[in-house]
């Protein structure tokens, strides 16, 4: 247990966790939606706007140069964090959703094909579903959906059977935001590549919890959001293999992404700028770098060990609640507990938990098709981060018990 993080110490640097709501100490278990931010991240933003702020690239003055250097250093640092080969394989976006839309759009243009086929899974977030769905719908194509096993893990047989129908691209989440399932994205990439099919991995729910080695996974695209990994909102990362990014046409136009513009025609800048139109969110990119360095300093191993404890302890305590049903119990699942209590609407449960100071998310978690698949309107979801405590899991279980008693 020597690798466990010092959670008490760590909590000190998260001001948001010290709040009370309705007079009760806040227990924040909505980390799947967004995490709270350490002071180092908040201060990085503040510092940027107090002493470094300038628009970047092409500027010759001191602040512009300072900001540009910091921005490009952050790019290199993000590349190193996920072990990307080259820093220009890192594109900064607004978030996961924008990154997936970018790839879906540019890939569609590149392929320029009738009846395209995209293979996803039944556990995708809307952001990794609707962009592909709209493309195939508009072109007479087909969205192929690999099913799940009862424990919420991917039905690999079904997946492989669909793969044989030769989809144009595979888009799959690394970790399910509802079920916590960790998909075998390395194996999936390998079998997809054997058929020449590129793979996009949605890492929104992975990057805060487990080390991501892009060269090991070997996927073609990997995307995540800063705000779900202790970073600020308004920044996300799109990793793309150089060969792909070179090949795909740009998505948005204007600003730094052009090389030479005349009224008749435009040539585009090289990577990574080709995909970064308009003034980037410089401050947020620098704060994202700080957030990732917070993660490295804490250590993925320590984070995973602690979160695993939280999750299994939480499961254990909650399973004593009468009539509770869990969604997602695959081995090795991430720090998410989704559940319902028979006969109780998740909204009611969530509302009462809130009054007891516990922030969970209720509803469909932007995964309506998964809810349909499970035959439920929604779930209550407790999603943990490194700063949550075993004691908080106890208070969650007590509160769920109490609420359930009130609601029955």
């Amino acid at each position: 247990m020597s690798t466990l993080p010092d959670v008490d110490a760590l909590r000190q640097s998260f001001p948001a966790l010290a709040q009370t709501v309705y007079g009760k100490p806040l227990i924040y278990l909505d980390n799947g939606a967004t995490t709270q931010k350490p002071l180092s991240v908040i201060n990085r933003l503040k510092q940027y706007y107090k002493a470094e702020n300038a628009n970047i690239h092409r500027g010759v003055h001191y602040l512009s140069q300072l900001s540009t250097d910091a921005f490009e250093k952050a790019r290199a640092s993000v590349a190193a964090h996920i072990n990307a080969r080259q820093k220009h394989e890192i594109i900064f976006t607004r978030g996961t959703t924008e990154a997936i839309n970018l790839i879906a759009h540019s890939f569609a243009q590149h392929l320029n094909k009738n009846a395209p086929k995209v293979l996803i899974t039944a556990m995708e977030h809307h952001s990794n579903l609707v962009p592909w769905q709209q493309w195939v719908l508009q072109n007479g194509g087909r969205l192929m959906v690999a099913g799940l096993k009862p424990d919420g893990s991917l039905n690999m047989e079904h997946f492989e059977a669909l793969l044989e129908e030769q989809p144009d691209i595979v888009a799959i989440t690394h970790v399910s935001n509802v079920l916590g399932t960790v998909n075998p994205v390395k194996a999936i990439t390998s079998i997809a590549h054997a058929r020449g099919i590129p793979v996009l991995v949605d890492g929104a729910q992975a990057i805060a919890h487990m080390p991501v080695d892009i060269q090991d996974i070997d996927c073609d695209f990997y995307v995540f959001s800063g705000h779900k990994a202790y970073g600020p909102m308004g920044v996300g990362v799109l990793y793309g293999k150089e060969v792909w990014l070179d090949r795909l046409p740009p998505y948005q136009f204007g600003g730094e992404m052009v090389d030479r513009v005349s009224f008749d025609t435009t040539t585009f800048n090289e990577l990574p700028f080709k995909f970064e139109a308009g003034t980037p969110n410089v401050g947020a990119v620098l704060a994202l770098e700080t957030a990732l360095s917070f993660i490295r300093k804490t250590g993925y191993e320590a984070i995973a060990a602690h979160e695993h404890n939280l999750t299994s302890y939480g499961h254990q305590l909650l399973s004593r609640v009468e009539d509770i049903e869990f969604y997602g119990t695959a081995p090795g699942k991430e720090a998410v507990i989704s559940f319902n209590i028979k006969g109780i609407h998740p909204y009611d449960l969530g509302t009462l938990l809130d009054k007891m100071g516990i922030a969970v998310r209720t509803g469909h978690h932007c995964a309506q098709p998964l809810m349909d698949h499970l035959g439920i309107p929604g779930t209550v979801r407790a999603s943990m981060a490194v700063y949550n405590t075993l004691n908080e899991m106890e208070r969650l279980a007590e509160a769920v018990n109490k609420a359930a008693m009130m609601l029955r």
Partner: protein
Amino acid sequence: MSAEQAQQQIIEEFSAYEDWLDKYNLLIEMGKDIPVIDPRHKTNNHLINGCQSRVWLHAELRDDGKVYFSADSDAVITRGMVSLLIRVLSGRTPDEILNTNLHFIDAIGLTEHLSPTRSNGLVSMIKQMKLYAQVFQLKTKN
């Protein structure tokens, strides 16, 4: 009892409780006394969509010139909120309904449910009740 008296009564009933959970307990209990909507009206036509819980609302103008509401929700807290609204607004004339300022929600500390961004759909519900009243008002005046 006037709408105002009904509001006062509700405020009084809630004033007995300090703790949030006690208030919610009462709310949940009250939801059980809701004039339940006839199952054949529990259709999409009568559905008011909040993001998370669903509410079905039916209104009829009876011969006494008053509007009677019945409703249901799949969430019991929402049902409790709706039952309070019905207590205040049901069995009143369209004029009365339109002129009632629902101050009790604030007074009993449930203002948060009135946020337009709240996902329980309460705001759309009140709008819908007033809309019914408006429609019936036009009807009676013609």
